[in-house]
C-alpha cells in the first residue's frame, strides 16, 4: 500500500530509504526548491505566519514523539517550551553564550524538566498523567511569573536576535532560513527516530505497555526517553521563539497554547511524520487568516452582535475542528492523505 505499483526491494539499502521513486525525488527536490525561494515571493505580511509555523512545527513534532508514538499525553508542552525560551534568553542575554550553544542547552534543560514530570508515567497513565502534566504547566508558568529577579515577571525579557559566528539573523528572511533549517532537521530526526529501534519500542509501549514490558522492552526507560526527546524539541522551539519574537514573558506560554499543540497534532494525525506538518500548517494558516482578516470583517458587518465577539470565534472553530476530526477521522488528515494516495495509485481499478 505504501509503495506505488511495480516497485520492488532488491537490497536493504533501497528498502530503508525514505524517498523511493524518481517521482518522489523530483517532487522532493521541487518542494525543497520552492521552500528555499519562498521568502522572495511571499508577501511581507505572511512572513510572521510562516516563521511561526516553522517554530511551532518543531514543538508539535516533539509532541508527536511523546504522544503520537509513545502514547504519553502531555498537556504542558507550552510550559516546556517556556523553559527553553527563558533558558536561551538568559544565556544569550546575561551570559553572552553563542546562540547555537544556547539552543542546545535550552533544549537540554527543557528535556530535563520534562524528565522530572515524566517520572509519574512509570506508575500512572492516561488521565492521571494528563493531570500531572497540567500541573507541570501551571507550576512552570507560576515559577516564571514569580521568580521576578530573573524572569522580570510580566514585564518579560528582551532577547537579542540569533547570531552564528558573524552572521546576524536580524531580518525576517534570514530568520526564515534559520528557523526552517532547524525545523527540517527536527522533522527528519523524528521521522528516522520512528523507524529505528527506539521508535518501534515507543510504538509497542503505546499499543500495550504491559505486553511491551513482557517482550523485554524497558518501559520506564523508553517512556522517560520519549519525555526527554519531546521536551527537548519543545525547548528548541522555545529558544527559537524567544530570539524570533525579541521579547518574551510567561504570558506567551499559556495552557491554551498547550491544548493548541495537541489539537494541531490530532487534526494532522497522531503517530505519523506527515501529521504534525499538515496540522501545524493548516491550523496556523487558518488561525492567522481568521484573526487578521475574517474576524475584523465579521465585526464590521455583523454590528448587531456585541463588540469583541469574534475573539471567541477562533477558539470555537478550533475546538469544533478537534471534535469533528476525532469523531469522523480519528487518524487525522495524514490518514486522509494516505487514503487519497492509495486510491490515486490504484485508479481506475480500485481493487
Amino acid at each position, binding site marked *: 500500500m505504501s509503495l506505488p505499483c511495480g516497485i520492488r526491494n532488491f537490497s536493504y539499502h533501497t528498502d530503508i530509504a525514505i524517498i523511493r521513486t524518481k517521482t518522489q525525488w523530483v517532487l522532493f527536490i521541487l518542494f525543497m526548491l520552492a521552500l528555499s525561494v519562498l521568502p522572495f515571493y511571499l508577501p511581507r505580511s505572511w512572513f510572521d505566519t510562516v516563521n511561526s509555523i516553522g517554530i511551532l512545527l518543531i514543538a508539535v513534532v516533539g509532541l508527536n514523539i511523546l*504522544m503520537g508514538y509513545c*502514547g504519553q*499525553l502531555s*498537556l504542558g508542552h507550552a510550559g516546556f517550551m517556556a523553559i527553553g525560551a527563558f533558558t536561551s534568553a538568559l544565556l544569550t542575554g546575561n551570559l553572552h553564550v553563542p546562540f547555537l550553544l544556547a539552543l542546545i542547552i535550552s533544549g537540554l534543560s527543557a528535556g530535563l524538566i520534562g524528565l522530572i*514530570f515524566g*517520572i*509519574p508515567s512509570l*506508575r*500512572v497513565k*492516561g*488521565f*492521571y498523567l*494528563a*493531570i*500531572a502534566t*497540567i*500541573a*507541570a504547566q*501551571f*507550576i512552570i508558568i*507560576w515559577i516564571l*511569573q*514569580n521568580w521576578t529577579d530573573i524572569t522580570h515577571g510580566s514585564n518579560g525579557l528582551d532577547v537579542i536576535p540569533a547570531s552564528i559566528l558573524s552572521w546576524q539573523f536580524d531580518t525576517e528572511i534570514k530568520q526564515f532560513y534559520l528557523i526552517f533549517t532547524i525545523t527540517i532537521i527536527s522533522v527528519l530526526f523524528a521521522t528516522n527516530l520512528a523507524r529505528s529501534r527506539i521508535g518501534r519500542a515507543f510504538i509497542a509501549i503505546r499499543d*500495550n505497555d*504491559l*505486553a511491551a514490558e*513482557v517482550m523485554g522492552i524497558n518501559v520506564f526507560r523508553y517512556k522517560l526517553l520519549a519525555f526527554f526527546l519531546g521536551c527537548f524539541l519543545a525547548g528548541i522551539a522555545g529558544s527559537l521563539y524567544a530570539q524570533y519574537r525579541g521579547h518574551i514573558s510567561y504570558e506567551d506560554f499559556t*495552557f*491554551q497554547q498547550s*491544548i493548541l499543540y*495537541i*489539537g494541531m497534532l*490530532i487534526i494532522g494525525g*497522531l503517530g505519523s511524520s506527515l501529521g504534525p506538518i499538515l496540522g501545524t500548517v493548516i491550523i496556523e494558516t487558518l488561525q492567522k487568516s481568521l484573526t487578521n482578516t475574517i474576524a475584523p470583517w465579521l465585526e464590521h458587518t455583523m454590528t448587531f452582535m*456585541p*463588540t*469583541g*465577539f*469574534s*475573539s*471567541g*470565534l*477562533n*477558539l*470555537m*472553530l*478550533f*475546538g*469544533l*475542528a*478537534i*471534535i469533528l476530526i*476525532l*469523531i469522523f477521522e*480519528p487518524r487525522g488528515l495524514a490518514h486522509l492523505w494516505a487514503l487519497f494516495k492509495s486510491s490515486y495509485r490504484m485508479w481506475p481499478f480500485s481493487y
Partner: protein
Amino acid sequence: MDILIQNIITGIATGMVYALIALGFALIWKSSRVANLALGQLVLISSWFAYSMLVQFKFPFWLGMILTIAFAILLGWLIERLALRPLIGQPILSLIAITLGLAYFLEGLTAFIWPQGQGNLPKVFPQTSFQIGPAMIQQELLWAAVISLILFILLSVFFQYHRMGIAMRATADDQLAVQACAVPVNRVFSMSWIFACIVAAIGGVLISSIAAINYGLVETGFKSFSVVILGGMESFLGCIVAGPIIGLCETFGGSQFGSSVKELIPFIIIVIVIMIKPFGLFGEERIERI
C-alpha cells in the same frame, strides 16, 4: 487564634465548592470512565447563562435558576449525544482529547456570546458576616458549603438506592455484563453528563455569586482536579473529604507564604499525590492484565 479559626472555616468552605465541582467529574468518571477536562468551562458557560437570565433579562431568581438548570440539562444531553457517544470504545487518548476540544469550544462560545469577559451575578445570599467566637465568617461561604454538602448527600443516596444510580454504578463496573442485563447504557451515559452539567451549573452560580464571572472559573476547574486526584477518581466520599483538605491547604499556605503561592498549592498537591499514592485516598487501585 481568631485568624486560625477564620482560616479553618474559610478553607473548609472554599474546599466544599471545589468538592462540588469535583463531584461533577466523579459522576462522569464513575459511569463512563471518561475524564472530563472541560470541567471549568462547563462551570463558566453555565454561570454566564445564569448571568444572562438574571442580569440581562432580569428574571426573578427562582425562574433564572430553573432556566439555568434546564440549560445545563440540555447542554449535558447535547454534549453526550453529539460528542461523546460516537467515541464509545475509542482509546483513552481520544476520550481525553475530545473533552479538550470541548473545553476549547465552550470557551470560545462564551467569548462569542458574552465578550465582555467579566460579569457580576446579583448576590444570592445575605452579605452580613457573623462571628464564631472571635472569628469573622462570611455568611455566603457557609451557604455554599451547606449547599455542596446537601448535593453530595442527595447524589450519594441517588447512587446507592435509585434504579438509575445502581445502573450507573453497574455500568462503571462492567459495561458488557450490564448491557446483557438490559440496562440502557446509552441512557446511563447521557444521564451522567446531564447530572454533571447540573452540578457544574449549581457550583458555577454559587462561586460566581460570591466572586465574579471571569476566566478565573476555568482555573477553579483545574484546581478541582486536585480534589479528584487526592480523593480518588471514583469516590464521592473522596471528593467531599479531599475538597476541604485542599481548601485548608490553600488558605493556610496563602496566609503563610503570601497569596501568590495560594494559586500553586493545588498543583503541588497533584504532583505529590501522583508520585506517592496515585489512586488517591479512596480510589480503587486497578490491576491490569494483558
